[in-house]
């Protein structure tokens, strides 16, 4: 961060509302694209930066590289045909899409799912949170130039994906949560293998703690980067760890308890002074919390029982007219599905509300001002944005 007062006359003037006055013809500014083909971007999104020297004066987010038109495709498919399509909306944590879709359909159709299915769903969601946080942390250190924690963490994530594969058969897209329940319960001996995996993950996390959070380079680059004021949380609609790091305790698992979270014992983690370092620290504590919740669940959940409720013939399933909104807490914040049905066999409109919609577009454009070009990648990763859910 430069000492602005010394060189005040060399910087551009400001508009009344605080934005910089940019004159591209005056050759003092250069337009740089941190475009889609870039190793420092999470996913496939681009930032159009107008820089003066090394400082960013204006940032514009461009999305749309991953648009597949999900909401239009889902209007052409029956409810059971939508179910394999849904998990590909937010690629790194697919179970939340499946859960929200199944929960809206069940609420509108009036189906109640059995106990064992609810426990199984909670377990899958916490495991998905854990894998996503591990990948995120690898990305955050990679954005600042530390390569090694990323390799450890992705190895740990691979071990978790093995456990997913034993339950559902697929590493990335599980398709295990469907309207009416789940596709199956835990196989034999799974708890023992999961406990081994959790112990290995804790070993990895203690190594990462030493190399990442006591690292002079990481601290110097991330402290003070991307400071979020608590008053912006409502104005910009910030959710998830970004809001919790600013001091506002927003957690969907505690505020609107869904599935079996009301029977588990945990506290909402908050911090004060939200900058990139604090957010990384908060997410590290969330990883430990997820490991603890998985252990609690494995002790409490029923090992056998009914896991699928009685649903009508899926080929002729017509759901009465209605609309609803279901939310869940994914790694980035509040993830929700708004579904409208009209009495036919096809959904009328399904809208996906992803937290990156606000974080990557409105908030990023505000936070990137006065940043170095080298730090924008770190800033974007610390807001934990995934482009697929912005443009679906």
């Amino acid at each position, binding site marked *: 961060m430069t000492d602005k007062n010394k060189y005040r006359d060399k910087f551009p003037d400001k508009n009344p509302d605080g934005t910089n006055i940019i004159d591209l013809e005056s050759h003092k500014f250069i337009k740089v694209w941190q475009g889609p083909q870039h190793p420092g971007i999470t996913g496939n999104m681009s930032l159009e930066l107008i820089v003066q020297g090394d400082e960013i004066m204006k940032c514009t987010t461009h999305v749309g590289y991953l648009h597949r038109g999900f909401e239009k495709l889902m209007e052409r498919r029956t409810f059971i045909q939508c179910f394999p399509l849904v998990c590909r909306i937010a690629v790194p944590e697919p179970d939340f899409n499946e859960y929200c879709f199944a929960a809206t359909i069940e609420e509108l159709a009036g189906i109640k799912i059995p106990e064992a299915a609810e426990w199984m769903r909670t377990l899958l969601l916490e495991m998905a949170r854990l894998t996503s946080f591990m990948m995120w942390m690898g990305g955050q250190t990679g954005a600042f130039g530390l390569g090694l924690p990323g390799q450890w963490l992705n190895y740990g994530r691979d071990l978790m994906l093995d456990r997913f594969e034993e339950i559902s058969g697929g590493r990335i897209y599980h398709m295990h949560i469907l309207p009416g329940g789940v596709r199956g319960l835990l196989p034999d001996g799974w708890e023992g293998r999961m406990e081994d995996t959790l112990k290995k993950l804790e070993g990895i996390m203690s190594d990462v703690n030493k190399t990442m959070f006591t690292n002079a380079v990481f601290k110097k680059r991330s402290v003070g980067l991307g400071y979020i004021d608590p008053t912006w949380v409502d104005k910009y609609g910030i959710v998830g760890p970004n809001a919790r790091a600013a001091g506002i305790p927003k957690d969907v698992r505690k505020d609107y308890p869904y599935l079996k979270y009301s029977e588990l014992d945990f506290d909402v983690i908050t911090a004060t002074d939200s900058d990139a370092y604090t957010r990384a620290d908060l997410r590290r504590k969330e990883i430990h919390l997820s490991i603890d919740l998985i252990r609690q669940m494995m002790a409490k959940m029923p090992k056998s029982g009914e896991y699928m409720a009685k649903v009508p013939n899926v080929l002729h399933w017509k759901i009465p007219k209605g*609309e609803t909104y279901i939310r869940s807490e994914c790694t980035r914040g509040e993830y*929700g599905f708004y579904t*409208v049905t009209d009495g036919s066999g096809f959904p009328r409109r399904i*809208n996906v509300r992803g937290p990156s919609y606000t974080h990557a577009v409105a908030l990023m454009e505000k936070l990137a001002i006065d940043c170095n070009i080298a730090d924008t990648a770190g800033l974007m990763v610390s807001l934990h944005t995934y482009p697929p859910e912005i443009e679906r």
Partner: protein
Amino acid sequence: MKELLKDIKKRYDISMIVHQRPDEVFATVNKEEAVALITHLRDHEGFTHLVLLTAVDWLEDGKFQLTYLLNNDAKRNDLGLRVMIDREEATMESIHHLWEQAATYQRELKEMFGIDFPGSPRVNESFILEGWHDIPPYRRDFDTKKYSEETYFPRPGRVTHDPAEYMKKKLYPEE
């Protein structure tokens, strides 16, 4: 939520109230009073979080339904406001001065549905699609399968079965 609805009914004209869950209510409000009601809810009733702003296309009635989903975090309540606007001339007042992310939602609706929000910043810039010259794609009269088959070269050999017909033929071949 019931006292809140009684309060609002005294001053604004809301109808078609549906209590979906104990903490979630949907209600329809007129187009002219919508922004005033939303401002009142944000400033005086504690609905400070805009969850989403989306549109539903009711082609048969010739209307778009805009849904504003607001959330009161202190009392854990959700309120969904439906605003019905005309499908041929789809415009609505902008709420970008209330929340910053509303400008992004409005940009997407303009591009995908063709609903105009005059005054919203950068509402005419393309957000998701590039070089799109057809009608707004999320409208129900846009046939995406026909567009895909004509524009992108499909690989021959794809056969589609209607699942009900296929199972009927397999299980009861005589009929």
